[in-house]
């Protein structure tokens, strides 16, 4: 049986890479973490490997495919996929369209929402969700 996987996507250079590395080292679990800079590429890969992927960690505001659309597509393929949304627009935003992003993210009902920069214990929170699928 092949190893279970986590996909991470963020269009901001190195953001997905840093997230991948951090999970790889700090997580109690042993997953293969794959990082992407394009949600479209992630989706293509997910179509092939969805059986092994237990969690997708995604940025929300991305060109080509927005977080909401990506989540929708992922769930169509695998309804019980664990979703973690990360965004730099959460919490401090004052403008209305940015606040809408916050509401939109919550409406997607992800398993975890991470505001950037991540809180110190964020990997623990990811671990807790991974425990549910273990």
């Amino acid at each position, binding site marked *: 049986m092949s190893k279970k996987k986590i996909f991470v996507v963020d269009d901001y250079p190195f953001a997905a890479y*840093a997230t991948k590395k951090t999970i790889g080292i700090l997580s109690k679990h042993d997953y293969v973490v794959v990082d992407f800079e394009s949600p479209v590429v992630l989706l293509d890969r997910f179509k092939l490997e969805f059986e092994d992927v237990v969690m997708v960690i995604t940025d929300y505001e991305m060109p080509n495919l927005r977080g909401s659309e990506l989540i929708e597509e992922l769930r169509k393929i695998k309804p019980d996929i664990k979703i973690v949304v990360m965004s730099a627009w959460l919490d401090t935003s004052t403008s209305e369209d940015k606040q809408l992003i916050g509401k939109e993210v919550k409406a997607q009902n992800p398993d975890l929402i991470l505001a*950037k920069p991540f809180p110190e214990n964020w990997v623990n929170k990811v671990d807790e969700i991974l425990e549910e699928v273990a």
Partner: protein
Amino acid sequence: MHRLLKRQIKQVYGKQFDTNDLDEKTLKLMENITETYENFDEEKAFLNHTVKENKKAIQEAYKSMLTSSRLAVIGEMMENITHQWKQPLSIILNLVSILKIEMKDNRELEIIADQTKYLNKTILDFTNFSSHSDQEKKLFKLKKSIAETIHIFNFQATEHHIIIKQDLVEELVINGDIGKFNQALLVLFSNAKDAFVSRDIKERVIEIKTEETALDVVVSVQDNAGGIPDDVIDKIFEPYFTTKFKDKGTGIGLSMTYNIVQNMNGTINVHNHKDGTLFTITVPKNSIKDIHG
């Protein structure tokens, strides 16, 4: 005969001219013209005055519009900067947390981690003040807010020998977040304190007064600390504008007050009045019945 007409006749015909030489009809006509002219003059003065007043009102409205649009632009800019900074900060913090595992007890790394956290905290502080996502609007008694604020400020007032005079109308109720409104008032008190101290004012008095109009509640805070120089008074509500020494002011206080009042659908104005600064906050009035009903 009309004084003005007499003068005109003298001017035109000379001193020796006898008005009896004019026939009654002509005289009447002249008198009538004089009167009309005088009325016209009064009208003109009145119009002039009205135009001046209107011009002043328009100028003030324009000024406050400029201020709020400038604030909006600056706020948006800050938000974008914060957003841009969060991305690299997030990456750095993540990578540092990994390196900390790999290189235990590395002092340099600890310093990088602390400094990055400090950067993060700073941008959060600077953006939180303009955030109103956590704001909860509720009806509250103005007198309660003022009492709470004075209570917080009391320590400083005693230490710096500041007398606070209150002239408050009972039972005024306004709508907003009482904690934020307290902060807004505290900024005014605290700025007055700074001015008292830096200018070494001897008799230090802050007067807080509340009044009600048909629709609004007016809170005025007057100090006797010497006022604000004319060349900066228009800028004091702008974020990050400060006249204080760098270690004393971030320039956030008054812009925070401005934002809080604006979020309550109110306005705040500043004038140099008597021997100090007068801040006037106007917010919509609610009735005491609303608070229970």
